[in-house]
């Protein structure tokens, strides 16, 4: 099977869906680049090059460069989705959610319900999240929790190239507004990705490692860190279940609960701030539904409760590291009532 990067997998999913369905469009800032310029068109293909090549193939009516105008991008996508298109709207950095959130959570998310089931909003918001690139307080945040809490939105966090392609195809075909959160650390990572189109259903977790001692749930790139920790601990005879929920809305609660019923111990890792985050959410679900199975307190490994600092040492301290995950696993294993 061919090896593809996360970036290529996402690009391929969009290209294949655009070939299959002429109502799929891409809209955003510099999704091609070079509009109105003397140099190359498609000069960027998105700031990370993820949409590169779509403009030459599909042209300016379907790959639309916009001014810097996120509210209008998201609103236009929502309005177009309500009226026959299937837009993929790019929000360059997830931090910019602040500029356009109304069009997403008050508009796109609510059409179907508010209008008694008579409207729909089949759009995808592709966005990029994640700290560690020294992008500072306004270019590093993962705000998955903010969209996950909104009824009507579906939220997808692919953690490898294979999942990225299948989940994005599902997202484009979905009849609701889907927030597709790409982790900026993963664009260069690669794995086997089929050339054919395939879908991965939402709400089905992926077990990256199977074990009996501790359950580790990780969101976005943190799950890859969890796998690294699990593999190291396996050498000591500690066996971890590592679960990637793949979508935070819907969330595969069952997979997590079943795992905790076996292991009795849960560590949840996410790269968001600790209050009201995904780790807190999963923790509350397990405390409610699998309390009897727990043999130790649930441990959350999250970022610190502060804006994201610029200085490398501070940012590294801010975000969850493998050593934090390992310490949490050892804590729950060593816990005695």
């Amino acid at each position, binding site marked *: 099977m061919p090896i593809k990067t996360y970036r290529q997998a996402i690009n391929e999913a969009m290209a294949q869906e655009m070939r299959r369905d002429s109502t799929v469009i891409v809209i955003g*800032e*510099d999704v091609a*680049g*070079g*509009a*109105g*310029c*003397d*140099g*190359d*068109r498609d*000069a*960027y293909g998105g*700031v990370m090059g993820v949409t590169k090549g779509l403009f030459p193939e599909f042209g300016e009516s379907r790959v639309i*460069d*916009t*001014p*810097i*105008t*996120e*509210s*209008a991008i998201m609103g236009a996508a929502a309005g177009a989705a309500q009226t026959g298109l299937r837009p993929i709207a790019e929000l360059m950095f997830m*931090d*910019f959610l*602040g*500029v356009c959130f109304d069009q997403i959570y008050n508009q796109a998310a609510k059409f179907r319900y508010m209008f008694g089931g008579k409207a729909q909003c089949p759009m995808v918001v592709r966005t990029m999240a994640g700290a560690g*690139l*020294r*992008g*500072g*307080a*306004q*270019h590093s945040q993962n705000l998955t929790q903010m969209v996950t809490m909104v009824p009507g939105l579906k939220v997808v966090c692919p953690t490898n190239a294979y999942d990225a392609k299948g989940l994005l195809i599902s997202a484009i075909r979905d009849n609701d507004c889907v927030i597709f959160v790409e982790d900026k650390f993963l664009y260069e990572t690669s794995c086997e990705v089929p050339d054919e189109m395939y879908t991965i259903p939402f709400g089905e977790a992926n077990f990256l490692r199977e074990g009996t001692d501790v359950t580790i749930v990780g969101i976005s790139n943190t799950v890859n860190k969890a796998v690294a920790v699990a593999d190291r601990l396996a050498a000591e005879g500690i066996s971890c279940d590592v679960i990637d929920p793949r979508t935070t809305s819907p969330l595969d609660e069952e997979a997590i609960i079943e795992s905790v019923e076996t292991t009795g111990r849960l560590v949840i890792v996410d790269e968001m701030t600790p209050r009201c985050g995904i780790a807190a959410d999963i923790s509350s679900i397990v405390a409610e539904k699998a309390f009897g199975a727990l043999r130790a307190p649930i441990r959350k490994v999250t970022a*610190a*409760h*502060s*804006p994201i*600092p*610029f*200085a*490398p*040492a*501070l940012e590294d*301290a*801010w975000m969850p590291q493998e050593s934090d995950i390992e310490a949490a696993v050892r804590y729950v294993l060593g816990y005695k009532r």
Partner: protein
Amino acid sequence: MSLDKEQFLQAYRTMRTIRDFEYRVSDEFGKGNIPGFLHLYAGQEAIATGMCMNLDDDDYIVSTHRGHGHCIAKGGDVGDMMKEIMAKQGGSCAGKGGSMHIAAVEKGMLGANAIVGGGPPLIVGAALSAKTLGTDRVGVSFTGDGGSNQGTTFEAMNLAVVLKLPAIFLFENNGYGEGTAAGYAVGSKDIASRAAAFGMPALKVDGADIFAVYETCKKAVKHCRSGKGPIAIEASITRFRGHFEGDAQAYRGKDEVKRLMKEMDCLVIASANAIKKKLATKAQLSKIDQEVAAYIDESARAALAAPGPDVSELLTDVYSSPY
């Protein structure tokens, strides 16, 4: 009205300081000494300089992601800025902000901003403080052509008119927002003409000409200080560097940058004009060049040698008091 001898030399020194600062941080970035993203102001120096020379320390400015020049022009400490950009102790923002959040709050430079269009509403607030507190301060938002298209900018302009605030919306039209031309993204083509629709006057100026920028900004500041409400300025300019350091700039025409650097270098234009007007001699200018070069080098060396912030500072300054 125009720059006198002493003012010209000051303007020249500021522009040269910004230029050298930018080229030095570009070098240090290339050597891996600067983390994160870097957007340089090289080529646009006359705009920040000409504007800020008309402001007092207690006037306010807000900036963009391309903020080093604004910060230097407003009197920010170059050594502290260098440390900040290198993420070091003693940096202007304690190493927590970085290039995109460079600030000199004590000098009325209320911060660079990594959210395009984040600044204009903030300057409305600063102008509101000035009006409400009865000071004669003015606020200036530096915004790009790209930022001119954000809803926040439109809302800020309208509110400033409604409240008749001493706010200046200074648009630096450098032709591009990332890799998209202003000619494509600004529907009205010219930014200044939008101001009238909001009910405020606007001025246009060649942003490469320090004399013209200075005089235009002088008029704008006078307009605001005399209580006539907000005003807009559109300064046309180019950028010498990519959108960010490392930008391949494939969207720019062949030899475009080379040509513009020749035609639109504010320092070259300023020197030629000043010598012609007998405001300065070649010798005076090259002395300033040398002094600035030494100053920038010293700042960079000090920053390189400084330690990074201590990890114990991660949770300080999240709130006003311990949490």
